[in-house]
């Protein structure tokens, strides 16, 4: 897995080991894991930018925060619990992790506990970062906020790179394997991880879908579309936005932690805006902002095109005088601009709030009328019933 870790600069390179003729199951599992993580983060951006009108141009920071803390603390903590010497952790990480992995593989419950603890920590860090970001977010105009978050995310990356005790500075750090118990050969570990990541994403999706269909979802759109009018109706737009950013950032942190546990390493160079802010904007613009199924489709489109370019680039490598990876940047930028120009709503544009079907409404009215009629009969017999 070491080469996976070093090659995941683009965040999505996880399945790039797989070439033609290799195990298609392995390929699909890898692709599905990457898709799940992408989708979870895209959904949070959709909640912020799509539903609530908070343009988060610093997504990389929130994912990186969760990933860095999960990667940094989980190893030390499990070393502490298992009695492994963790002094001089950053420099001795490969040795310590090696010891830990063999111990953790034999200890299913501790592994699961550490996994959950890592997720909780990452969610906490994400929430704290989100809370900090929400302070300017509710006060500034969209353009100022965009600049501030973009700049903050870049500074966060510099901080991760420049502060070795956290995740080992430039070179990054290894993370213990909490799925070692599933490592029974034939890619069982990846299938288990897919189960965990997939479950996480499904829960996130269901939660956001529920939010979108609830009165809260309609309030969010109202705040986004007309702040003054929603305020006049008594909606506290400041509190709502704050909550949205905190929740979205906590989920981002968890997604970052899951990615870290999957690739078993975390480094600072991963979290550039090319790899961890821009793709999510591409996804929600292509798929359709403020529409969760659109975002799911957008994430699939993104992952699919990425894979197509990945596969096709070996065909071109010989003919072109440059690295085909660069075309990826151009392809996604052009695609985004085209969608913005030709289909600003995305493939599946935002739908108006769901209302009940005409027949259903008619039935409800009928039932109510019946009830009232019945009540009327009751009240005639019972004079106390007003």
């Amino acid at each position, binding site marked *: 897995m070491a080469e996976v870790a070093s090659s995941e600069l683009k965040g999505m390179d996880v399945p790039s080991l797989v070439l033609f003729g290799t195990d298609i199951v392995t390929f699909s599992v890898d692709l599905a894991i990457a898709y799940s993580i992408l989708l979870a983060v895209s959904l949070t951006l959709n909640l912020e930018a799509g539903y609530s009108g908070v343009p988060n141009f610093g997504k990389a920071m929130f994912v990186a925060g969760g990933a860095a803390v999960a990667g940094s603390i989980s190893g030390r903590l499990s070393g502490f619990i298992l009695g492994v010497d963790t002094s001089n952790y950053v420099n001795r990480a490969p040795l310590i992790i090696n010891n830990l992995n063999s111990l953790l593989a034999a200890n299913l419950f501790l592994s699961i506990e550490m996994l959950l603890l890592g997720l909780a920590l990452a969610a906490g860090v994400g929430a704290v970062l989100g809370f900090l970001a929400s302070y*300017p977010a509710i006060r500034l105009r969209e353009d*100022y906020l965009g600049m501030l978050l973009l*700049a903050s995310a870049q500074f966060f990356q510099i901080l991760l790179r420049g502060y070795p005790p956290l995740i080992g500075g430039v070179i990054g750090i290894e993370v213990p394997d909490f799925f070692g118990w599933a490592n029974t050969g034939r890619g069982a570990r990846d299938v288990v991880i897919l189960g965990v990541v997939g479950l996480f994403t499904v829960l996130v999706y269901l939660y956001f879908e529920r939010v979108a269909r609830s009165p809260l979802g309609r309030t969010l759109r109202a705040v986004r579309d007309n702040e003054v009018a929603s305020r006049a109706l008594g909606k506290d737009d400041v509190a709502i936005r704050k909550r949205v950013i905190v929740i979205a950032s906590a989920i981002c942190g968890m997604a970052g932690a899951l990615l870290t546990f999957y690739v078993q390493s975390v480094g600072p160079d991963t979290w550039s805006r090319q790899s961890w802010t821009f793709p999510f904007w591409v996804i929600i613009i292509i798929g359709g902002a403020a529409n969760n199924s659109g975002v799911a489709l957008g994430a699939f489109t993104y992952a699919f095109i990425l894979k197509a370019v990945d596969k096709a680039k070996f065909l071109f490598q010989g003919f072109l005088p440059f*690295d085909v990876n660069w075309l*990826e940047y151009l392809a996604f*930028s052009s695609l985004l601009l085209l969608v913005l120009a030709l289909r600003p709503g995305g493939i599946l544009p935002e739908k108006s709030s769901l209302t009940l079907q005409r027949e259903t409404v008619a039935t409800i009215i009928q039932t109510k009328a019946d009830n009232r009629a019945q009540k009327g009969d009751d009240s005639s017999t019972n004079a106390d019933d007003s």
Partner: protein
Amino acid sequence: MVDPIITASIVYASLFGLMAIGLTLTYITTKVPNFAYGSFVTVGMYTAFSLFRLQGFSPYSSVPIAFIVGSLGSAAMYLGILRTLARRGSSLVALMIATLAIDIAFVGIFGIFSDYLYARYRIIDAPKFVQLPGDYSLFGIQGIVFTAPISLCTITLALFGLLTKTKFGIAMRASVENPSLARVLGINVENVYIFAWSLAGGFAAMSGAYYTLWLPGGIDVGSKLIVEIFASSVLGGLASIYGAALGGVIIGAGEILITTAGANLFGSSVGIYQKGIPLIIMIITLLLFPQGLVSLDLRRAFRKFRNLRSLGWRKSLHLS
């Protein structure tokens, strides 16, 4: 020899001043924060780098060429993408995403260009190169330490002259202040915007060419400078080009001086927080005086202060 910290502050201050003037020019015309602006700095870097390597041009002689390349690129970006999207009714956020997409596309273009330089001319260091030689030297100090501030002053003065003394400059101000009214008066607002955008791209590329004489360049160097450039413009108020120049000078000099002071106090490990200084200044500006330096009315603040003092003085007199 002059202290290297002083020279570094001068160069940083001048270059960020130049870059911030350009960013502010794009912002006051279209009201969209231009995330791709840093990439135009890289355009200037690669113009200077390739001309130096292929033709032996000194970066100074590439400055005019870089200016033209940057101007054309910036005008093309405005005409081809931003204006098209704005006419189709894109929202502010959509336009911001578009500039972000252009920034990412530029990274790809620079990558392809540097790979091409390697494939065609065997230039190995194209993706990441050290500062270029060929600068002159005056009193034992590198020439850029003089050239950069002189350029900044000249450009600021020239813009001041253009905006206050010429008819076109006044038309420019009118188009920025109130586009509809300017149109009614027969000003071609579109041309004004195109002019402003090409100037902006030119300034960015120009400072990029200067930058290669002082610091290492590379594919993503320009787009990483965006933190300082935004901070400078925001500090200047995002509405005034003189404010931007001043903001750039403060951010550039402040970044070096505060880091050095911090390193002297707490040891060299504070160096990693250098890029945090512009960010912190930006946050303070946005939260305390979002209209920037130009909104601070020093005379009124002083008068208030004097009044308070004299009030207190009189009060104490009455009391005694």
